[in-house]
């Protein structure tokens, strides 16, 4: 859960706060979980993801990310969280390494950067259907990579 939230928010303090919110939400809504509609993990994932994405859209984060430019780069390099993130990303790359470039891209943006399919389609000018089929191909590929039958 934390990994999902952290990758989207990229800042430890914010991610911890959101994680806290996620668990509170789960605590409150656990009676809404319906096993017939999917695994508990998926349900949790979607709560965490949505909470994190909501956070990125909220004012405080967007302001921080907009003050970009060189200062941001310097501060990010100084930032130990940034280094931590790089190390964690190696784990993700490991898993995605076997995928064709365009599928890797889709998985990375959808799962680790908190993009929605529509945003990805719009921002990178890929038809939405293509985003979907690429994700599908990627997931099938990963099925083999991860040995899930």
């Amino acid at each position, binding site marked *: 859960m934390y*990994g999902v939230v952290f990758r989207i928010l990229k800042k430890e303090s914010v991610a911890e706060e959101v994680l806290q919110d996620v*668990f509170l939400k789960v*605590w409150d809504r656990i009676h809404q979980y319906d096993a017939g*509609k999917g695994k508990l993990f998926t349900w949790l*994932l979607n709560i965490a993801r949505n909470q994190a994405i909501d956070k990125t859209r909220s004012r405080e984060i967007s302001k921080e990310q907009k003050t970009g430019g060189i200062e941001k780069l310097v501060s990010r390099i100084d930032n130990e969280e940034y280094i931590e993130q790089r190390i964690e990303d190696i*784990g*993700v790359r490991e898993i995605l390494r076997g995928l064709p470039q365009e599928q890797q891209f889709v998985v990375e943006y959808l799962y680790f950067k908190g993009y929605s399919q529509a945003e990805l389609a719009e921002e990178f000018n890929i038809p939405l259907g293509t985003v979907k089929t690429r994700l*599908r191909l990627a997931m099938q590929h990963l099925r083999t990579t991860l040995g899930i039958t």
Partner: protein
Amino acid sequence: MNIHEYISSGVLEAYALGALSEQEQAEVEKNLAQYPELQRELEQIEAVQEDMLMRAAIKPRAAVKAALFDTLDAHPKAEAKVIAMPPASSSATIWKYAAAASVAIALITSYTAIHYHGKWRSSEQSLQGLIAQNQRMAQDYDQVNNRLDNIEKQIDVFDNPSFKRVIMKGTDNAPESMAYVYWNEATKEVYLSIQNMKELSKTNQYQLWAIIDGKPVDAGVFDADISGLLKMKDIARGAVTFAVTVEPRGGKESPSLQTMQVAGNVVKEG
């Protein structure tokens, strides 16, 4: 519903990612309940998702866990609330609700109509693209297949000992010219392979002749620009010589011998 198409649209992946609108989500859930095949597919997608994300998991600081439990202790678990339905007071309120409901339905319907129209257009476009691509591939495939067929046929001819190769060398008319005839006496098949023949004007064509019992027999016409083996007319037993003349396009019944370009004798066996 075509289950296979439904699955390959990637809708289940989007569902597992929580990327669908509430309406789409409800539709997927309805289908999931109806088709066990979809259920199985979804389970696998979820397993991949879980496995991938668990491998990419990051451990939060230990303090986070402690803080979380503190908050949870302070946070009462929401009990299921029972809300009594207000009794329907008067018909006026009912009409008000009905009007509000119909407006809401109208809004939702037009929104979905626009939404799906957009989706339909984009999928229509991708489909057109795919169809075009598919046709190109099919054409390419046909071409390659044809070439392969030709090459296989040529190999059969070259490989088959029943085919005799007759080398036709250039006559005084065209000393540089040369062509081969592959002739199977048993099956009567004749193939021609051009080594070097001059281009002719459009009104003329080359014509191949077989000399049997001293008489020329027509074996078909050809142009200078063919490549590979060209199947000619069948020639029965007894041909001793093959020769090529220049004739008006379409060929003639008897050769204009003065125009002979190449000629060669069939090599007797033994």
